């Protein structure tokens, strides 16, 4: 481009020397402080490079004399959070679990903390909202409990698990495989199904259910109770309500009698600390089905202590 620098009449400033459709650009000098600002950014950059990680090397970047790292900062923040939470956790640890609901703030903290632990350890089976999985894992949000729904009982169940063969304190029971082992024949099982379905008023009494009543009394009532009220000492489900873990239709009940599932749950007492288990119990309790602790001295549900429920077990074993 032909250099067409000239002095602009109005301002007395030189033009840059090029022109587009008659528009020219003035070569107005930059204010000097702007230059100093630029130098300042250079000084800042040098200081930054010295103080902070900057140059990428083969394995990692240069460390910087401050020794700052994002991982280190994260650790610091985690430590600070741990320290911040400590008083709350200590208070929860020091409060007997049955008294938690009387301290709303602690209870709220425990529910929050338990929710966080639930989302890590429990959602795989019980679902993110604790609703379980149909025909596989129990729903924790309803008002029906296999082993009991008060805080202490839930805590015990979480700590010791269900049907852990390697653990003496675990919740243990086993429903016989009536069909598979040949205790009852298919016709008897069908009669028992009829009777069970009259308990929950899904069917009207019939000849079949009358025959089933006798079978039930002989084989099932010992655990499930004569009226199908269930038995929490052995985790025998209530059969006269609307909730069916493994399904309440004829085929499902028949399948259960033929070959029961006898579901298991890991014990968490040896994996999680007692406060976390306590908070988990509070969270499960808060899902909507939490029960009041039995008023009478509990004969069925044991009263586990805070740290280790070991050696306290009077829970039902088969």
């Amino acid at each position: 481009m032909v250099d067409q620098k000239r002095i602009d009449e109005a301002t007395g400033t030189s033009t840059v020397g090029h022109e587009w459709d008659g528009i020219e650009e003035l070569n107005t000098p930059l204010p000097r402080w702007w230059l100093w600002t630029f130098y300042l950014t250079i000084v800042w950059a040098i200081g930054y490079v010295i103080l902070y990680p900057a140059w990428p090397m083969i394995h990692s970047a240069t460390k910087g004399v401050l020794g700052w790292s994002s991982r280190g900062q994260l650790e610091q923040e985690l430590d600070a959070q741990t320290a911040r939470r400590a008083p709350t956790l200590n208070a929860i640890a020091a409060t007997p679990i049955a008294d938690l609901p009387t301290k709303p703030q602690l209870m709220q903290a425990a529910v929050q903390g338990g929710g966080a632990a639930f989302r890590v350890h429990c959602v795989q089976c019980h679902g993110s909202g604790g609703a379980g999985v149909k025909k596989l894992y129990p729903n924790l949000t309803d008002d029906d409990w296999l082993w009991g729904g008060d805080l202490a009982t839930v805590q015990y169940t979480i700590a010791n698990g269900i049907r852990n063969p390697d653990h003496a304190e675990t919740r243990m029971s086993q429903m016989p495989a009536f069909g598979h082992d040949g205790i009852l024949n298919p016709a008897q099982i069908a009669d028992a199904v009829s009777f069970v379905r009259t308990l929950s008023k899904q069917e009207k009494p019939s000849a079949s259910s009358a025959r089933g009543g006798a079978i039930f009394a002989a084989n099932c009532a010992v655990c499930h109770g004569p009226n199908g009220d269930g038995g929490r000492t052995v985790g025998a489900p209530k059969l006269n309500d609307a909730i069916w873990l493994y399904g309440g239709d004829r085929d499902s009940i028949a399948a259960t009698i033929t070959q029961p599932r006898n579901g298991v749950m890991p014990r968490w007492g040896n994996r999680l600390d007692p406060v976390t288990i306590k908070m988990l119990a509070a969270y499960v309790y808060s899902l909507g089905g939490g029960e009041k602790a039995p008023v009478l001295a509990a004969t069925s549900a044991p009263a586990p202590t805070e740290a280790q429920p070991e050696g306290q077990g009077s829970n039902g074993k088969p």
Partner: protein
Amino acid sequence: MASPDDLTLASPSLYAARKGVYPKRIDGPFRRFKWLVMLVTLAIYYGTPWIRWDRGPYAPDQAVLVDLAHRRFYMFQIEIWPHEFYYVAGLLIMAGIGLFLVTSAVGRAWCGYACPQTVWTDLFQHVDRLIDGERNAQIRLANAPWTLGKVARRALKVAIYLTIAFWTGGAWIMYFADAPTLTHDFWTGQAAPVAYGTVAVLTATTFVLGGFMREQVCIYMCPWPRIQTAMMDEKSLMVTYKDWRGEPRGSTKKALAQPGAFGDCVDCNQCVAVCPTGIDIREGPQIGCITCALCIDACDHVMQQVGRPRGLIDYCTLEDVAAEKAGEAPRPVWKTLLHPRTLIYFGVWSAIGAAMLFSLGQRTRLDLAVQHERSPLYVQLSDGTIRNNYTLKVRNMETRPRRVAIGVSGLAGAELWTETGRRETATRRVELALAPDSVTRVRLFVAAPTTGPERQDFTIAARGLDGDPRGDSDIIQFDRPEEDE
């Protein structure tokens, strides 16, 4: 690569040093108005946080308080919660349109009188005159070698600059916490680090921008002068040198010698001497002119002395300029102000203000937000009824404890209980005690018979039980299992 032009054109410097500006003291109507504006704006700025306003025991008693820590904004009897931020947005829009209005009516009046940069620069220039003396003394001192006396004067001036800057930063933080408490905490080292940091930053910016950058901020850094040029039109007031009256310039002596050969401008340079941004208004409208009108005061003073009519430099619109050049009388000021553009701006501005005032008067201070828990959507209870869970956020925006009732309508056979209640005692409503000025979060369990539509809309409502029965309600879904299950 020497270009032949280099021989003819002086090679321009890439960088220009700032030319010192030493405005002369002047008195006149505009200067007095500037004093008044400075007094009022600084009084508002420094004084507002100290105004008390009784709101009862549950709210701060500071009239204007931006309580970031607790997410509240107090302005006299108005309290704004974060979800009501649209009021603040409305105020900002009003401020924006207000600036449009002012600019289209009276040009860069914001720049000339009310802008903090202008007010603080003015303040610092008064400090200059106080310490270093008048314009000429200041120029002499600036060019003088660094003697002990100069060092002492400069040190004293910087100390005063820093004091003003520190009080400026110190006043700012008072808007964000209880002013007396914060003052005490600040001086006893107990205030939050962010308070000290804010004061340090604002002290530094005030010191640098007010003490040294001054007109450079307006000319190089501020976008507003450039935006304003787009808002001004031929009906906007500008400070104008009436060159058709003033040119050619000549001193009174020359004018006496050659009557009729010279215009009214006596080339006394007073308009340049008083200019706080160091420009020559006689070169025409320019970005450096903040329209503070001090040159009008200066010129009127001189015109009076030499016995010529005032207003050689004056507020004029471009239309006035054309009219005056054509020998017509300029339009009266009120007519220039009332042109369609300003009227439209004013209409929009006051409509927003009126709408905000109306909605402020109408708002209820009890608010309910309901969220349906989705995991699980419904729970079947052992007696066959269906329970849905909801998370309720009940905002009590009054500064007193309240009792409210939560009820439902449109859901037959519904029972309600909260996480602290029990189903055995559930009824069709629950009562809540709300702490003053707070959000209460409640999990609400709603059970209803299993017979009914799979998805059903119903209403959850909160209603005051203590005097003000107004409340809020939310329409939300109740879910039931699908039929085939």
